[in-house]
C-alpha cells in the first residue's frame, strides 16, 4: 500500500520510541512531521519551482501550470512555455491528467470544495475545470467590464469563493458561492498604492455574514473592506507583506517588513503573540497549522519554521522546493520528492506514547506489547488499570490513536492493544472497535499511492463518507467507491449512476448504443432508486439520442422523464409519458411546451388529437387563462366542435363592451348552434337576440332604467309591478311564455306589491280552475302575512282536508270552525280546540258542541 521506504522509516523497533522519534515539543504540546508519499512525478522530473501550483485541501489533487513570470534557462522542456499544459496530480504525485491550457494572463488558481479547479485570468475571465482538466459546463464566469479594463492583479481563494483586486484602482470584487456565481462589488478602498498583502475572511466565518477583506497598506496599517464600507483598523506594526487567516477565521497571522510575525484576532482587538525572525526577506508562504501554530517557508534558504504559541519554534531544512497546504488538522507539505504531513500529535497518541506515560491507555498498550512478547509484565500492567471506567477509557484511547495513525503497522499494534483490553473489560459493549477497523480500511485504501487521497481521520469526520465517495467516483475509481459503499453499508446508486454516465461519455463513437445499453442495464438492473434520467442526460449530452430515449424508458419517475424528453424534442413521447403519469403538472408542462414549439397550431392539434386527456386539459387551460381564447377558438374550429364554439361565442358576446358586438357574436353562436343541429340552443339564442333588441329600445326610451339584461320573466315582473298588464301580456305572447309560468310570476309579483284586488281579478279570470291550482295564491298571501286574503283562496281548494289543513296552519280558526261545522266534522273541531289555544275559539267550539246533539 504505502511505499516500503516510508514504512521502513516509521517502523523503528521497540516501545514507543519509533513513534515518538518524529515528535517535536512546542511549549506544552508535540508536533510531528511524517513522510507519507514519495512523489510518483519524480520520473517526470516535475519541479515545483517552475510552476504555479494549487493544492486542494482534504488531501486533494495538485494542479500545476507553468509559471510564465519565472525567467528560465532555455532547457529541453521549453516546449511547455509555448504550449502551456495544465497538469493535475494526486497528492501522491500520481498523474491524473494533462490538458492544454490555452489561456494567457494567469493570476491564480484555487480548488473548490467540490474539487473543481477555478482559474482566474487577468482580463476578468474565470474558467472552472474538473479533476481531469475538462472545463465544467455552465461554470464559466466573467467578472465584468471593470475587471477587464483595469486588469485583475490578485486573487485570494477560499473553498466556496474568491476575492479579486484590480490592478490600478485596487477595486475588490467577490464571488461567494460558485453555485450562484453573482459578482459582487465590494466597497472602494481609498489606497494610493497597491496593498502590500491581502487576506480574506470567508462569509461563513464573519459576524455580518458577508465576506471581509483585509488589506495591508503601504503606510503600515490594515484596512477592512466589506460590501458596505472601508475601515482603517489603525494597526501600526506594518507594513505587512504576508497575512493569513486561521482555519476558523478567528485569528490572523501577519508578517511585517522587519521580519516580525504578529498574531491578531481578526477584529484586531487583541494582539496575541509576536515572534521576531529578523528576516527582512519575506517568507514565500505563511500557513496555519491548526489554530495555534504558524508555519513559515523561505524558498531561498530552504527553511521551514514552525512557530508555536509563546514563541517556541521548530526549524526544518529542505534542499528542494515545496508548497504548503493548510488542512483542518495540520499542514500538508508537497515537495518535489515527497509529500509530508505536519500536525499536532493527537491527544490519544500523546497519552499512549509520551515518555513515561502512566495513563491507563499507555499501560494497556504496554501490557499488550508485553503479552505479544510473552512477557509476564503484561499481567502487572493490566492490573494497574484499576477501575472498569479506566479500562474503557484505555480501549477508547487506543482505538482513537489507531484511527489517527498513518502507519498501518502502528495501527495494527494499537488495534491489538484495544482488543487485548477488551478481553479484560466486562463493561465494554461498544461496537467502536468494528467501526474503527472499518474506517481504517477505507482510509488506508484511499491513501494508497495509486488513489492518493491523503485523508486524516479528523478530515474524514469533517468531509463525511458521502463526499469521500463522490470524490472517488469523480476520479473514476468506481470499483473502489462501490466497495466503500458496501463496506460502509451505504446505498451504491450514486456510484452506479456516475459509472454509467462516465461509461457513456467516455465510450468511443463507434461503440454501438445497443452494446452500451446492455452493459449499463446489466449493472443497474435490480437496483432501487436508480436515476435513469441522469444517465439518459449523459447519453443525450454525448449525442446518443436513441440511447437516451431507451434509458428513459427505465426511469420510473415521470417527473424526471418528461422534462428531458421535452429537451430532446421527443414531443409525443414526452406527452405520452406525462399522460401515463397522471401528473397534471407534467401534462400541462408538456402541452404548453409543445404548443409553443410549433408555429402552426394545426400541427399541435394533430398531436393531441388522439389523446383525450391532453385535449380536455388543454381546453381547461385555455378557459382558465382568458388570453388563450383565440387558441381555443382555432381548436374548436379544427375539430369542428360547433357546440363548444357556440358557447365560446356566447361567452365572448357577453364579454364585449358594446351591445352591437354582443349581438354580432350571438349571431355567430346561433350559426354554430344551427350547424351542430342544436335546435334548442339555436332557438334560445335567436330569441335572446330579439329580446336584447327590444330591451335596448325600451331602455333608450325610458332612460335611466336598466332594462337590458333582464330575463323574460324579470321583464314581465317589472311590468306587472307597474301594472302594465298589456305590456306583460305582449311579452308573454312574443316570447311564448307558458301560461303556468306567466301565472306564477304574476301571482308572486302582485302579492309582493300588495295588489290584492288585481290578484283577485287574476284569480277570477281563471274561473274555477287555475292551471297552477290555488296553492301558489295561498302561499303568496301567507308569505306577505295576509291571512284574510289567503283564506279567500283556501276556500277555493277543492279538497276538504286540504282546506282544513291550510286554515289550521294559518290559524284562521273562525273559518276552520265554520268549515268543520259545515262538514259536520267533530273530530276537526276537537283538533282546532287543542291547536288554537285561543279561549275565544274554544268558547265558540264549546258553544257549538253544546248546541248540537251528540
Amino acid at each position: 500500500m504505502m511505499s516500503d521506504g516510508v514504512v521502513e522509516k516509521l517502523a523503528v523497533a521497540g516501545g514507543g520510541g519509533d513513534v515518538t522519534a518524529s515528535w517535536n515539543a512546542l511549549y506544552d504540546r508535540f508536533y510531528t512531521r511524517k513522510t507519507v508519499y514519495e512523489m510518483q512525478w519524480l520520473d517526470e522530473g516535475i519541479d515545483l519551482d517552475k510552476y504555479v501550483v494549487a493544492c486542494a485541501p482534504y488531501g486533494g489533487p495538485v494542479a500545476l501550470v507553468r509559471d510564465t513570470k519565472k525567467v528560465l534557462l532555455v532547457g529541453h522542456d521549453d516546449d511547455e512555455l509555448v504550449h502551456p499544459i495544465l497538469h493535475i496530480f494526486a497528492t501522491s504525485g500520481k498523474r491524473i491528467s494533462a490538458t492544454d491550457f490555452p489561456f494567457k494572463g494567469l493570476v491564480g488558481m484555487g480548488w473548490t470544495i467540490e474539487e473543481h479547479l477555478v482559474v482566474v485570468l487577468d482580463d476578468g475571465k474565470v474558467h472552472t475545470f474538473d479533476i481531469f482538466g475538462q472545463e465544467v459546463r455552465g461554470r464559466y464566469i466573467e467578472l465584468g467590464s471593470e475587471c477587464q479594463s483595469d486588469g485583475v492583479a490578485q486573487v485570494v481563494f477560499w473553498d466556496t469563493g474568491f476575492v479579486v483586486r484590480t490592478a490600478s484602482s485596487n477595486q475588490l470584487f467577490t464571488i461567494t458561492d460558485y453555485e450562484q456565481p453573482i459578482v459582487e462589488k465590494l466597497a472602494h478602498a481609498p489606497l494610493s498604492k497597491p496593498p502590500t498583502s491581502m487576506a480574506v475572511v470567508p462569509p461563513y466565518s464573519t459576524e455580518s455574514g458577508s465576506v471581509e477583506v483585509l488589506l495591508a497598506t503601504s503606510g503600515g496599517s490594515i484596512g477592512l473592506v466589506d460590501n458596505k464600507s472601508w475601515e482603517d483598523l489603525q494597526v501600526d506594526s506594518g507594513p505587512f507583506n504576508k497575512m493569513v487567516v486561521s482555519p476558523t477565521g478567528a485569528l490572523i497571522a501577519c508578517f511585517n517588513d522587519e521580519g516580525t510575525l504578529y498574531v491578531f484576532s481578526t477584529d484586531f482587538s487583541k494582539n496575541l503573540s509576536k515572534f521576531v525572525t529578523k528576516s527582512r526577506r519575506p517568507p514565500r508562504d505563511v500557513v496555519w497549522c491548526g489554530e495555534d501554530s504558524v508555519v513559515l517557508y523561505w524558498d531561498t534558504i530552504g527553511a521551514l519554521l514552525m512557530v508555536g504559541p509563546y514563541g517556541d519554534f521548530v526549524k526544518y531544512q529542505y534542499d528542494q522546493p515545496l508548497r504548503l497546504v493548510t488542512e483542518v488538522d495540520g499542514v500538508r507539505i508537497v515537495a518535489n520528492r515527497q509529500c509530508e504531513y505536519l500536525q499536532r500529535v493527537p491527544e490519544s497518541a500523546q497519552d499512549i506514547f509520551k515518555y513515561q506515560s502512566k495513563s491507563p491507555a499507555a499501560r494497556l498498550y504496554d501490557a499488550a506489547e508485553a503479552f505479544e512478547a510473552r512477557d509476564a509484565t503484561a499481567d502487572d500492567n493490566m492490573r494497574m488499570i484499576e477501575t472498569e471506567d479506566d479500562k474503557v477509557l484505555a480501549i477508547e484511547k487506543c482505538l482513537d490513536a489507531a484511527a489517527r495513525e498513518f502507519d498501518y503497522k502502528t495501527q495494527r499494534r494499537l488495534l491489538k492493544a484495544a482488543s487485548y483490553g477488551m478481553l479484560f473489560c466486562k463493561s465494554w459493549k461498544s461496537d467502536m472497535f468494528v467501526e474503527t477497523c472499518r474506517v481504517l480500511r477505507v482510509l488506508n485504501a484511499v491513501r494508497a499511492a495509486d488513489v492518493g487521497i491523503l485523508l486524516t481521520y479528523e478530515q474524514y469526520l469533517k468531509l463525511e463518507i458521502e463526499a469521500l465517495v463522490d470524490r472517488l467516483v469523480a476520479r473514476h475509481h468506481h470499483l473502489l467507491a462501490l466497495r466503500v459503499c458496501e463496506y460502509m453499508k451505504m446505498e451504491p446508486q450514486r456510484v452506479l449512476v456516475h459509472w454509467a454516465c462516465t461509461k457513456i461519455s467516455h465510450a468511443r463513437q463507434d461503440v454501438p448504443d445497443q452494446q452500451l445499453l446492455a452493459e449499463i442495464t446489466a449493472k443497474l438492473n435490480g437496483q432501487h432508486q436508480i436515476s435513469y434520467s441522469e444517465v439518459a442526460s449523459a447519453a443525450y449530452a454525448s449525442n446518443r439520442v436513441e440511447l437516451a430515449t431507451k434509458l428513459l424508458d427505465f426511469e420510473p419517475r415521470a417527473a424526471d422523464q418528461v422534462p428531458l424528453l421535452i429537451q430532446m424534442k421527443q414531443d409525443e413521447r414526452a406527452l405520452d409519458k406525462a399522460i401515463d403519469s397522471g401528473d397534471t403538472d407534467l401534462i400541462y408542462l408538456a402541452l404548453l411546451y409543445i404548443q409553443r414549439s410549433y408555429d402552426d397550431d394545426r400541427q399541435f392539434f394533430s398531436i393531441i388529437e388522439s389523446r383525450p386527456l391532453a385535449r380536455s386539459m388543454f381546453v381547461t387551460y385555455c378557459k382558465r387563462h382568458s388570453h388563450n381564447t383565440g387558441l381555443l377558438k382555432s381548436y374548436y374550429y379544427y375539430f369542428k366542435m360547433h357546440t363548444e364554439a357556440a358557447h365560446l361565442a356566447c361567452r365572448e358576446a357577453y364579454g364585449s363592451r358594446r351591445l352591437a358586438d354582443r349581438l354580432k357574436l350571438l349571431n355567430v353562436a346561433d350559426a354554430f348552434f344551427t350547424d351542430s343541429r342544436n335546435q334548442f340552443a339555436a332557438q334560445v339564442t335567436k330569441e335572446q337576440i330579439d329580446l336584447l333588441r327590444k330591451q335596448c329600445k325600451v331602455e333608450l326610451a325610458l332612460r335611466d332604467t336598466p332594462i337590458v339584461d333582464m330575463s323574460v320573466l324579470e321583464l314581465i315582473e317589472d311590468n306587472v309591478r307597474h301594472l302594465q298588464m298589456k305590456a306583460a301580456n305582449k311579452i308573454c305572447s312574443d316570447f311564448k311564455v307558458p301560461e303556468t309560468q306567466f301565472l306564477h310570476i304574476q301571482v308572486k309579483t302582485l302579492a309582493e306589491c300588495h295588489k290584492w284586488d288585481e290578484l283577485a281579478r287574476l284569480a277570477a279570470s281563471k274561473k274555477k280552475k287555475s292551471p297552477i291550482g290555488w296553492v301558489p295564491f295561498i302561499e303568496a298571501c301567507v308569505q306577505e302575512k295576509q291571512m284574510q286574503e289567503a283564506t279567500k283562496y283556501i276556500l277555493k281548494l277543492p279538497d276538504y282536508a286540504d282546506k282544513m289543513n291550510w286554515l289550521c296552519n294559518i290559524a284562521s280558526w273562525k273559518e276552520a270552525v265554520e268549515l268543520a261545522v259545515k262538514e259536520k266534522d267533530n273530530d276537526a273541531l276537537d283538533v282546532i280546540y287543542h291547536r288554537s289555544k285561543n279561549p275565544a275559539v274554544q268558547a265558540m267550539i264549546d258553544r257549538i258542541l253544546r248546541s248540537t246533539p251528540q
Partner: protein
Amino acid sequence: MSGKVKSKAAAVGDTSGGEHLANASVNLISLRQHARLELTRLLDSVRGRKALVLDRSLSGQLGLVAEVSLLKAFGVAQIHYLLEQPLATDCEAVVYLVRPETRLMHLIADQVQGHIRAGDTGKKYGVFFVSRRTMLCERVLSDRGVYGELLLGEYQLDLIPMEEDLLSLELPGVFRECFLDGDPTALFSVARSLVKLQTLFGLIPHVSGVGENAKRVYALMDRMRRESPGDQYNVVPEIDSLILIDRSVDLVTPMLTQLTYEGLLDEVVGINNSYIDVEEQVLTGKPPTNSSSSSSEPAKRKHLLNGKDSLYKEVRDLPFRSLGAILHRKAGEIQETYNKKDDAQTVSQLKEYMKQFKTAHTDHKELQTHINLAEHVNHRTLKDMRFVYQLDVEHCLVAGNKAVTMSVDECVSYVDGLIGKMEPMTKALRLLTLLSMTAGLDRKQFDAFRRKVVQAYGFERAMQTLANLEAVGMLRASRSSWDKVRHSLRLWTEDAQESKSQDDICFTHQGYAPLSVRLIEVSSAAKEGWRALDDVLRLLNAEHFTHQQELPVSIQERAKIMGQSSSASTSSSAGTSSVTDQHQQHQQQQQGRKKLTLVYFLGGVTFAEISALRFLSERESSDRRYIVATTKIINGASLLDDLIEFLPNELDRSSLKEL
C-alpha cells in the same frame, strides 16, 4: 432565546383543538401533528419577522391545523390575504401560502416587483405551495423575473382530520374539475394523500372502488408506489380495506335534503370547515338588542361544531325529527341533577354534588345552544309548510310509484312553479336535476324545462349552466333506470318511523337510504363483494374493481405474530377476570376486531352519508368500522353552485345608443 424555543416546542406540541381526535381508530392526531410540524418548519426556514400572506381559499383549512398563537410563536407578525393589490408591510420577510394556481403566481410577482420598484429590496420571500409545487407555477414566476428572489417550497397539507372518523382534503370544486372540465389534478392529490396515509398507517391490503375516477386514483396510487419503490410501507397495516367511490355514481343522494341534525344544519345555515356562521341570537336564543345595531346587519358569530362538543357528537347523526325528544330528556336529566342540591346534607355530599353540578352546568350550556340551534332550524324547516311540501316532492321522486302522497305530475308542476316564481336558481335546479335523474324527462319536458330556465334566470346565467348540467348527466332527456336501482337496493322504506326500519340507514333521509352508502353496505356484506352489484352498477353505468395490495413479506410476518399474541393474551387473562369483566372485554374485543375500512369519496360527501356510515360502523352485526375521507364535504347546493356558471358580463350601457 431558549425561552422562545421552549415556547415554540410547546406551541407545536399543543394538542388543544385536537381533542376530538383522541378516540380515533387510527392515530389521526399524528396526522394533525405532522401538518403542524411541517408548517412550523417552513416558517422557520424564512428568517425574521414575517408577514404571512394567505391564499384566501386556504384559510379555513389552515385554521383546522394551526391557531394564530402557533403562527405567532414562529415569528408571524401579520396575516394578510393574497389580493390584487400591493402588499404593504414593514416585516422583513414575507411568506406566501398558496395553492399552485398560475393566477396567484401573477399576484405574487406583482407584489414582489412592487416592493422592488419602491426601493424596498431587503425583504426575504418564501412561497410555499399547498400541497404541491408545480413546474407550471415555477415557470410563471420565472417568466415574470422574480424566481430568483423567492425561496420556494411545498406544504403538504392534504388530508386534514376533521373528526375521529373523518378526513378531508378540503379541496373545493373537485367534482366540477374532474367530471366537467376533465382536469384530473385533484385525483392526483387524492392518490398522493393515500400514499402518505399508507406510509403512516401501513399499506392497505384490500382496495376496491366504483366509477371511472376511482379506477384512475387506484392506477395513480399504484404508479406512485412503483415510482418510489423501497420499503416505505414498513408498518403493519391498521386499515384493512379502502373503498374509492366516485361521486358521479350517486348524484341523487346529494340532491335530496339531508334530514339528520348535522345534515339539516348544513342545509339551513351551512357548516364550513367545521364552523357555522350564525347570528348571535341564534345561539343564545335571546332576542336581539336593537339599541346599538338596529340599522346594520345583526352581528354574526362563528361557532365550532365538532366531536369536542360531547352532546353534539351524540346527537348530530340522529334524524332531526327525533331530536326534540332527546334534547327534552337531556334537559330533564340536568334538572334532576340541579334538584339534588337539597339532598346534599354533609360536606362530602355537598362536594360530590358540586362536582355533578359543574358537569351539569357545562352540559347545560351545550344543551341550551343546541336547543336554540334546533329551534332555529325547526322554524325554517318542519314548521314551514313549503319546506314540508318540498320534502314530499323529493320523497315522491325517489320513491317513484311507491309513494302514495302525490303523483309525479304534481312533482313536475311543483318544479315548474319554483322556476315560474324565480326561486333561487340553485333551489330550482336541485329539484329539476333530481326529477331528471329519478322520474326522468321525455324530450318535450326536457326542452320545455330548459326553455323555462332560460326565460326565468336569463340567457347569461342559464346557457352555460344548462350545458354543464347536461355534460355531467344530471339533466337529460331520457328515461331513467332509477326505479330498478331503487327496487334492487331497497332504497325506499315507507313509514320510516316504524320500528322495522330502525335498523337501516334510511333514517338519514326519512325513508330513503343513500345509494352510495347502500352500495358500500351491500358490497361489504356480500361474499362476492362488488360483483354482487354487477346488475345495479350496470344500470348506474359504473364499473367496479377490486385489487389486493401485496404486503412486504416482513410485514406479513409481523402482522401474523401480532395477531397471535393478541389472541394469546385473551385466553390467559380470561381465567382471572370476573364474568362481567369478561363480558366487557369481549365487547371491547369485538370492537377491536372490527376491521377498519376507509371510504374515500371522490368529489365530495354529505353529512347524511357520513352519518349513515357511522350507523353501519356501530351496528352490532357489522364486522367493520368505517372512516370517511373526502375531497370536501358537500351538499346539493354547493355541488350545484360549482356547476352554475354565469357568462361574465362586460356591457357598457352607453353603447346602447349605437344600435
